């Protein structure tokens, strides 16, 4: 069966050029980047080249890049390296929310019905002891692009640092780190493998390690560097990335034109070009995901719990959707490799699947 992948916000396939960059390092670059000898020096060179690639990609200095095991670790590192009160939002990734629960204190700012966090709400939530404001750059479920420049200014005016979870943003929207103190990115959302990510830490900003051992990453992240993954990450940062707006709009409009009672969640927010989140009245999103998967299309609905069952997305309920509405929503996220033909095939499968599910639905009339 042909498999068409439309879940790039969950993870992305590794690009061939990335595999090409990684394989020689797996074969010959086994050295420990901290070793004095030639194999070690070679690994160190590969590592630092990757760091320069990531820094170029983000527009910062290589010295401001801390390699981590991924987005979650980068988020945790930023949140937990600052003491005091934290202001964040109710649509953040669990890597932020769960880390905040372990911080001294935090305030959750509520996003609006379109999934946007208002700078004025951040302003209201800031306290004299607020040390950090953390607002994601692009929301993973809705694709809503947050006004982080303005929020960063508010944070700084109040004497707080600003972190942004850029895991869904990097490579998809322009990133300007000028007023940002911490910025998290993840390799596997960028066509690199899992197990590699980075935290940008502005020069002069303290970043206390969360794991302890050797002096790697300027003492900010102990542990022998994953050099082949860093090389892959660096290569992924140099990939050409086509604008996906036309393809996403074709998908969204194709579905809306053919499926009655379908609504785009958060349609009125500025959105990243690759994501659309559509609510289909009267259907069980979980059934639709399985039905589409059995036909070769990978899409997503909600969040997977530890057993693998689907729970309604906390982002969708946070923007005011009922549990039922959240459960009837499907996220389509595009990326490298998706074509017009694939999009048209997906539209056909979605139309058929919604019609089938609605025929069976006790609630849809």
């Amino acid at each position, binding site marked *: 069966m042909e498999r068409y992948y439309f879940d790039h916000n969950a993870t992305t396939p590794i690009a061939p050029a990335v595999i090409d960059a990684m394989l020689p390092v797996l074969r010959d670059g086994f050295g420990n980047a901290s070793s004095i000898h030639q194999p070690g020096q070679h690994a160190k060179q590969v590592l630092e080249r990757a760091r320069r690639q990531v820094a170029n990609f983000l527009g910062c200095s290589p010295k401001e890049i801390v390699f981590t095991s991924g987005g979650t670790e980068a988020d945790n590192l930023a949140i937990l390296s600052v003491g005091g009160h934290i202001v964040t939002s109710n649509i953040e990734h669990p890597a932020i929310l769960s880390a905040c629960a372990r911080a001294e204190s935090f305030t959750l700012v509520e996003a609006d019905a379109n999934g946007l966090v208002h700078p004025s709400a951040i302003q209201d939530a800031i306290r004299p002891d607020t040390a950090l404001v953390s607002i994601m750059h692009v929301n993973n479920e809705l694709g809503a692009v947050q006004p982080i420049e303005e929020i960063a200014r508010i944070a700084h005016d109040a004497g707080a640092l600003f972190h942004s979870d850029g895991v869904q943003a990097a490579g998809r929207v322009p990133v300007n780190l000028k007023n940002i103190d911490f910025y998290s990115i993840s390799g596997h959302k960028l066509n690199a493998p899992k197990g590699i990510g980075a935290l940008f830490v502005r020069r002069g900003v303290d970043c206390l390690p969360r794991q302890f051992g050797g002096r790697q990453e300027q003492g900010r992240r102990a542990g022998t560097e994953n050099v082949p993954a860093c090389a892959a990450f660096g290569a992924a940062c140099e990939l050409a990335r086509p604008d996906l707006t036309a393809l996403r709009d074709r998908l969204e409009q194709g579905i809306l034109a053919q499926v009655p009672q379908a609504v785009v969640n958060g349609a009125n927010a500025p959105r990243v070009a690759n994501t659309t989140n559509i609510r289909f009245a009267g259907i069980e999103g*979980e*059934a639709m995901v399985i039905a589409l998967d059995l036909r070769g299309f990978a899409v997503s609905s909600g969040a997977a719990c530890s057993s693998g*069952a689907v729970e309604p997305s906390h982002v969708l309920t946070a923007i005011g959707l009922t549990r039922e509405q959240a459960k009837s929503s499907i996220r389509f996220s595009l990326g490298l490799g998706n074509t017009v033909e694939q999009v048209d095939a997906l539209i056909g499968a979605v139309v058929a699947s919604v019609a089938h599910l609605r025929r069976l639905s006790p609630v849809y009339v």
Partner: protein
Amino acid sequence: MSKQPLIAVAMSGGVDSSVVAGLLKREGANIVGMTMQLWNQRRLAELAPETATGRCCSIDDVYDARYVAQLVGIPYYVVNFEDAFEKNVVKPFVDDYLHGRTPIPCTLCNNFIKFDTFIEMAEGVGADKIATGHYARITQNSESGRWELRRALDDTKDQTYFLFGLTQTQLARTLFPLGGMVKTEVRELAKTLALPIADKGDSQEICFVPNGDYKSFIEAYCREQNISLGDMSGDIITRDGQVLGEHSGYHSYTVGQRRGLKIAAGEPLYVIATEPESKRVIVGRDEELLTQAFTARDVNWISIPPIQAPRRSQVRIRNRHVPSDATLVPAGDDTRVQVRFDSPQRAVTPGQGAVFYDGDLVLGGGWID
């Protein structure tokens, strides 16, 4: 896509449903495995320390089911029915106890989850039939075309007592591949199919109640839901009004129960009823538990159309009860039946099911009123 019908197999991670998946796959059927996530074990965690038995939907079970699906080589999904399960099974279970009835959650789960929500999910994903590891047989009457439910070949494993709510549409979409097998055969098959769960124990009676301690479960659930139980203690009293002692909560007593009464009497005494209004637990001698006749409500007719005249049958009033000769008498409409036993039966308990048999044929069943 192949034109071959797609069968959704309900996989619990246990031996029976794993064998169903293995068997159907060996027969060349087009199947998809699914595990129903019914209850979040993180809730009421105080009841279930890691060592507790009788935990449903544990990560271990999902792990086993997923592994079996991988070995068998079929697509596999975990489907989340927690909302439906709580609404249709857990809440009524608690409610029944609080109203002095003794519920059978397995029947509610079959009626509302396994043969309703699950069938709906299966059809939604494009499946034509479902298959489960239940021990029961489904046949079709060649003359009337009516679907019939029959007792399992292995009488010790027969589960028809819990299946009396099945409708014709549900039966038409369901396969019970184990109905004609005995348990030892199933375990042998598990070994032959090289399924790693061949020696796994059978599942517990009430899957979501850890250690069978339903009293603690009800109390913890009501605490979580902010349902005020108030003071549930009251008198232990005989039919003729003699107060023999006190109890700490009527919801922990079941008709027929002898142990745990903590009263001194000259002869063995049994619970014969609980009265939520007066919070009294009525006790009496063994013979006071005997009942000649009762009414079954919400009767579902399976293998025969609703009866219009008295009909002989063997009626089972508990899972372990041996079906006893009785006459079924229509009582008003098609959903009410008076059951008149030939000889009185012990502990006819409101809230339990009454299932009507004719030999191995399940005529239908209802709830003891």
